[in-house]
């Protein structure tokens, strides 16, 4: 806190002078840096710091040096608000966050209230990974922008792919028992029912979040159901352990997942030997074939030691720069106005745009599967030193991912 206060004091004195061009553009990065989610939060922080360096190497944003201010929220909504308040108190006008929809909802509420109560000190919330659909529907806010496809959009894309797979006959849904897991299951049931009424949903399971240490009872149930495909939004240890138990029991099905590529996931898949049977839906793939993206990947891996898990963060930061330049200002109100409806060439190629109605970014989405990499020249990137990597199975165009919104946007 001291450091922040000192920094704030320093910033004030600078303001008192004149040289606003040297003033850093601070982005508060609010994510877990201690506690259970720390490994994920650290990865995000490295990504944003890398992106800030990239921008600064080219002169920053409108001459302002971009600075990432790490703020540890311990994956706790209340702590996030403390950190957000701390950041705002210290003069931060942009915050970004991704891990945990509960945190995201709290922050969205925070910026809305803060901005209505403190006109002239508006704060924007850039969301790079909290995917609860309600954040751009009933709870939507003008001050919130989301670069990740929300879970309904991903399911829309996923089911658009699944409907073309006649081998899928019996689907088992298993998800973590919280809002994200529930929206995955609800959307899956609804969309599969519409697009492939012949598919039978033979199981629909919610299990306690991050508390199960042995998934074998669940695997036994899946096996007993006779499913040929499992759809899951599980992430972190809940994904790795699920797969481990499946391998132990000898369950051979296809897995359609949201976050199989998360830390520990690739290792678990490799251990189970489920080659090309685990699919992931994401807005980018390391082996995308896009030259610029693949060069970026190479440099990123060399500098940070991790793979590009957040192409959306790249989109977020680059688009931020574009919007600021378009508005010719780093004032959040003007940047927000510029971002609305903005079109943008995304990281892995193709056009995306920030829908004005709900501030949801739409972009091409990829289905990829995990397995050994045949052509090292074309697909050079493996994951977690397993020798296996992601290759694209299908690309769903932006238009195919559009979903209507119930957002009733209140503009200032």
């Amino acid at each position, binding site marked *: 806190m001291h450091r922040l206060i000192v920094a704030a004091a320093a910033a004030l004195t600078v303001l008192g002078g004149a040289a606003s061009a040297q003033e850093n553009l601070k982005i508060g990065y609010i994510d877990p840096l201690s*506690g*259970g*989610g*720390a*490994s994920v939060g650290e990865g995000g922080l490295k990504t944003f710091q890398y992106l800030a360096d990239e921008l600064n190497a080219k002169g920053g944003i409108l001459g302002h040096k971009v600075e990432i201010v790490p703020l540890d929220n311990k994956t706790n909504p209340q702590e996030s608000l403390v950190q957000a308040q701390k950041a705002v108190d210290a003069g931060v006008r942009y915050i970004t966050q991704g891990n945990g929809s509960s945190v995201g909802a709290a922050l969205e509420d925070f910026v809305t209230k803060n901005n209505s109560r403190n006109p002239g000190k508006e704060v924007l919330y850039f969301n790079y990974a909290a995917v609860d659909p309600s954040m751009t529907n009933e709870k939507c806010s003008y001050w919130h922008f989301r670069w990740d496809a929300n879970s309904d959009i991903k399911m829309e894309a996923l089911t658009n792919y699944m409907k073309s797979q006649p081998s899928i006959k019996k689907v088992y849904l298993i998800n973590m*028992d919280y809002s994200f897991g529930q929206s995955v299951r609800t959307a899956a049931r609804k969309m599969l029912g519409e697009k492939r009424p012949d598919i039978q949903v033979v199981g629909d*399971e*919610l*299990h*306690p979040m991050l*508390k199960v*240490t*042995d998934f*074998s*009872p*669940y*695997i*036994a*149930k899946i*096996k*007993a159901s006779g499913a040929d495909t499992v759809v899951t939004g599980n992430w972190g*240890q809940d994904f*790795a*352990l699920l797969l481990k138990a499946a391998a*132990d*029991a*000898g369950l051979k099905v296809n897995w359609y997942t949201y976050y199989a590529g998360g*830390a*520990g996931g690739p*290792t678990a898949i490799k*251990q189970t030997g489920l080659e090309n049977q685990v699919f992931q839906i994401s807005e980018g793939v390391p082996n995308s074939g896009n030259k610029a993206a693949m060069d970026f990947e190479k440099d990123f891996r060399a500098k940070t030691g991790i793979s590009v898990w957040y192409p959306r963060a790249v989109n977020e930061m680059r688009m931020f720069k574009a919007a600021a330049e378009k508005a010719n200002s780093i004032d959040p109100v003007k940047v927000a106005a510029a971002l609305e409806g903005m079109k943008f060439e995304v990281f892995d190629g193709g056009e995306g745009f920030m829908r004005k109605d709900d501030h949801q970014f739409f972009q091409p989405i990829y289905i990829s599967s995990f397995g050994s990499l045949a052509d090292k020249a074309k697909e050079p990137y493996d994951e977690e030193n397993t020798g296996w990597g992601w290759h694209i199975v299908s690309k769903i165009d932006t238009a195919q991912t559009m979903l209507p919104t119930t957002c009733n946007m209140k503009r200032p």
Partner: protein
Amino acid sequence: MAELIVISTLNGVLFGMLLFLLSSGLTVIFSMMGVLNFAHASFYMLGAFFGYQLTRWIGFWPALVIAPLLVGAVGMAVERYGLRNTHKHGHVAELLLTFGLAFAIEEIVSMIWGKSPVDYRVPAVLDFPAFTVFSTNYPAYKIFMLVVSVVIFIALLVTLKRTRVGLIVQAALTHPSMVGHLGHNVGRVFMLVFGVGSALAGLAGVIAGPSLVTQSDMAALLGPILFVVIVFGGLGSLPGAFIASLLIGLIQTFAVALNGSLASVFGPLDPSLGASPLTDIWNVTIAQIAPILPYLLLVLVLIFRPMGLLGTRES
């Protein structure tokens, strides 16, 4: 359905035996020293991480022996340099010491091995399906875990019945005031008991680590359940702890296997009722509430039979 029952029973018994490896030490320590060792599950975690590290250096089998001994040594050091000095401040201070210790151990573990699960694998010799029930494989390693737990259980039984320390421990279980009459040996007996209890927890960690997840929050996940087991079984009762361990293991596993909810039994509620606590309770499945069942049991036991299943004394 039949395969679900077989697999769930095996898993339930296995989890129950693991719980007993932990709760036996906890019960004995509590009975003799009056200390509810909050850090007991942390010793289990230490066992898993020591096991993981030693497996990488010298292989699984030596680790299986050395890691529990190391954990036992840590336990003895905690007793000798921590609890013994805190004893004069009373049981609450001792309890708080172990509470702080649990906190610190978790932090140290995550500092050294990180917050994500470590790659602690089943040894290759045991990495095959032991048998197949209707098309579902049952891993050999789990059978191995079961065997180890049963062997330790029997060894514990023999030690309690046949050795001098065992007799002292048994006397202490039924007559806590007896411990005061042990004379000059009391310190050494305490240290030994604490060490053995910790080592058992460590052993449970070593064998559970590859099968379950080895992560810095594994102690915090398991700890509260342990307390449920020993209160449920009756404080100071080893047979009680045994029955409670198995029961909770089975309940936890079977609850997961069941899909029932009030809605599935009595039909869905009228949608016009809207969202209310009633609809929440109505629609929740048994599988979803599996993790809170032990605590529910705890509360029920405390209301209807405060001394626990087989306990004889209230505190």
